[in-house]
């Protein structure tokens, strides 16, 4: 005797093709300019920032920096659709989302410039800071969502990670508890095809990463992560379901990492120029611009004006960053515990005194 104990599927959706042409009927909101033009502005802003950050790194003014190039169509609608009281649990590539939710581009530069104050902006409220140890943030997201459940709040936790992260137990444990407890939580996998030098196919033998949701008993779907409309639709639905008590979702957004992994990486070592070229053909900003142009919602004049504005804003952030003096060395003790323990007072004094001595030696 054989029964079917489970049956399911994973769907992939896309609205705009690589040229920005609709391939299907668009949702109502995409038939008017407000949201999409704003997305376009944010996406190009993010991209300009990215270019600037890489330039700063190349000139020794910033540390190792992970580019967001190619993830704009995932990050922007997601941050935009979240409510203020929701909580973002980002990974290390979601700079634009953090800024959209209260942080400042200067903070992003501070963080990657080696200064803890980059995660200290009170405007970020309870959003979690950058998370470097892969996939560990997915469990924080479950804790955050559990806090909402305990308090009976209608808030949603949103967390992101890469394709590589889906191999780490943390991600899988997180999906599992989210399903078991039906947490108000949205998981977004930015499947940009590479985890540093390891291609997607070497992470997992399944045809989609979204199907990892199946084992956890949660909704999973795949979207074209270069298509801002597809991402918007999937995220909006997932947020609505989570907020309405209908449980968590996993969204796999198919994108392409157009940059090196970080500025410390050289992707030419392990991937072909042809592949990269194909990636650029799918890229999200041009796709959206084409669509906007086609609708007459955007044009060269608007672009020029916006670019000027963007440059100004980014230059301001860079200036602020560069003008931020290095923190006092004693700061490494000041937030280790809520209060400086007496055991550490002498060490704090020592690090300050040594710094002072060296300063004087340099000057004298």
């Amino acid at each position, binding site marked *: 005797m054989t029964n079917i104990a489970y049956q399911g599927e994973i769907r992939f959706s896309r609205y705009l093709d690589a040229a920005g042409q609709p391939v299907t009927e668009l949702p109502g909101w995409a038939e008017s300019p407000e949201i999409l033009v704003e997305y376009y502005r944010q996406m190009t802003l993010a991209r300009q920032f990215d270019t600037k950050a890489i330039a700063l790194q190349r000139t020794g003014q910033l540390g190792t920096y992970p580019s967001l190039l190619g993830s704009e169509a995932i990050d922007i609608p997601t941050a935009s659709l979240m409510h203020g009281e929701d*909580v973002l*649990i980002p990974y290390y590539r979601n700079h634009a989302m953090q800024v959209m939710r209260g942080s400042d581009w200067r903070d992003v530069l501070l963080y990657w410039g080696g200064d*803890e*104050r980059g*995660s*200290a*902006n*009170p405007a*970020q409220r*309870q959003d*979690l*800071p950058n998370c470097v*140890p892969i996939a*560990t943030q*997915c*469990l*924080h*997201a*479950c*804790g*955050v*969502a*559990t*806090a*909402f*459940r*305990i308090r009976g709040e209608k808030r949603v*936790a949103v967390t992101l990670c890469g394709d590589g992260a889906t191999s780490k*137990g*943390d991600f899988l*444990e*997180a999906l*599992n*508890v989210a399903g*078991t407890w039906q947490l108000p939580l949205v998981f977004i996998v930015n499947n940009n095809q590479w985890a540093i030098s390891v291609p997607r196919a070497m992470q997992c033998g399944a045809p989609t990463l979204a199907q990892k949701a199946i084992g956890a008993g949660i909704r999973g779907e795949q979207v074209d992560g270069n298509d801002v409309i597809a991402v918007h639709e999937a995220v909006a639905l997932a947020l609505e379901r989570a907020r309405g008590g209908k449980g968590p979702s996993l969204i796999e957004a198919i994108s392409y990492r157009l940059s090196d992994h970080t500025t410390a990486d050289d992707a030419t070592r392990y991937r072909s120029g042809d592949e990269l070229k194909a990636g650029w053909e799918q890229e999200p900003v041009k796709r959206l611009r084409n669509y906007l142009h086609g609708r007459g919602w955007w044009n060269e004049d608007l672009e020029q004006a916006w670019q000027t504005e963007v440059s100004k804003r980014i230059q301001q952030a860079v200036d602020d960053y560069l003008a931020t003096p290095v923190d006092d060395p004693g*700061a*490494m003790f*000041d*937030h*280790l*515990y*809520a209060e400086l*323990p*007496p*055991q*550490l007072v002498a060490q704090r004094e020592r690090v300050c005194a040594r710094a002072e001595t060296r300063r004087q030696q340099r000057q004298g």
Partner: protein
Amino acid sequence: MNESITLVEAVNLALAHEMAADKDVVLLGEDIGVNGGVFRATVDLLERFGPRRVMDTPLAENLIAGLAVGLSTQGLRPVAEIQFMGFIFPVMEQIISHAARMRNRTRGRLSCPLVVRAPFGGGIHAPEHHSESTEALLAQIPGLRVVIPSSPARAYGLLLAAIRSPDPVIFLEPKRIYRAVKQPVEDNGQALPLDTCFTLREGSDITLISWGAMVKETLEAADELAQQGLSCEVIDVATLNLMDQDTLLASVGKTGRAVIVHEAPGHGGMGAEIAATLSERGLLDLQAPIARVTGYDTVMPYYRLEHHYLPRAADIVDAARQTLEFA
């Protein structure tokens, strides 16, 4: 009247007290709900406080730690149980890389006021991996506190302090003495100070320093030595990180001799840190090398041999006598 209760009952009492007093206190772990914990430390709490605040998780320690981190960033006060210290390794990434760093990382914007409880130590004839003492793995981590009670009253007061602490605390419960003694404990909500040693007995000839279950043997050794006319100061370190060095130094300043007793292997154990610090800051006071009486530098043996592994009162007496006889 205060009832006489065991150490594990005191843990339960403190949890119940703080859950009643502070609705943000929530518990999570394996088998802590209906079952009340495999050692019964959480018995009745599910019934009293409901499943939103007493959460049996899926079986994954890393998950438990990650949930606690997430919960605590949102202002809750999670108290996580790891069923045995032998299964604490999967929590290390979350505790070291996140719980201990969140406040510093965000310069105070977020913090992780969480507690991880775990029974530890040998001597109960348990299976493999159920008898470890690896407190040194955690007590060396900046940003954490590691607290170990050695009596019912201290379990109650220190656990309250741990839960109320604005910083993450690892609270290790010496399971060998979970039910060894009863002591009257008043459920008065009074926390004990963290970061303080407890001087259990004053003395002038030698300082015996210990924590957890080994405090029992250490006190027995002090009794034995007293019969031999030797006066021991006995100190329960209680908080291994951040440690109260001043009390230890003052005692050794007085006695000039010290024996440190712990169950974990000696090599790289917290006894090394204490001995190093006392020698560094108190060398002139020392009239003899500081001795360490510890578990051997080997894997905890299965239970047929564990009584050979665990330090005994007689070993402490021997070490103390050698220290006292040192010219």
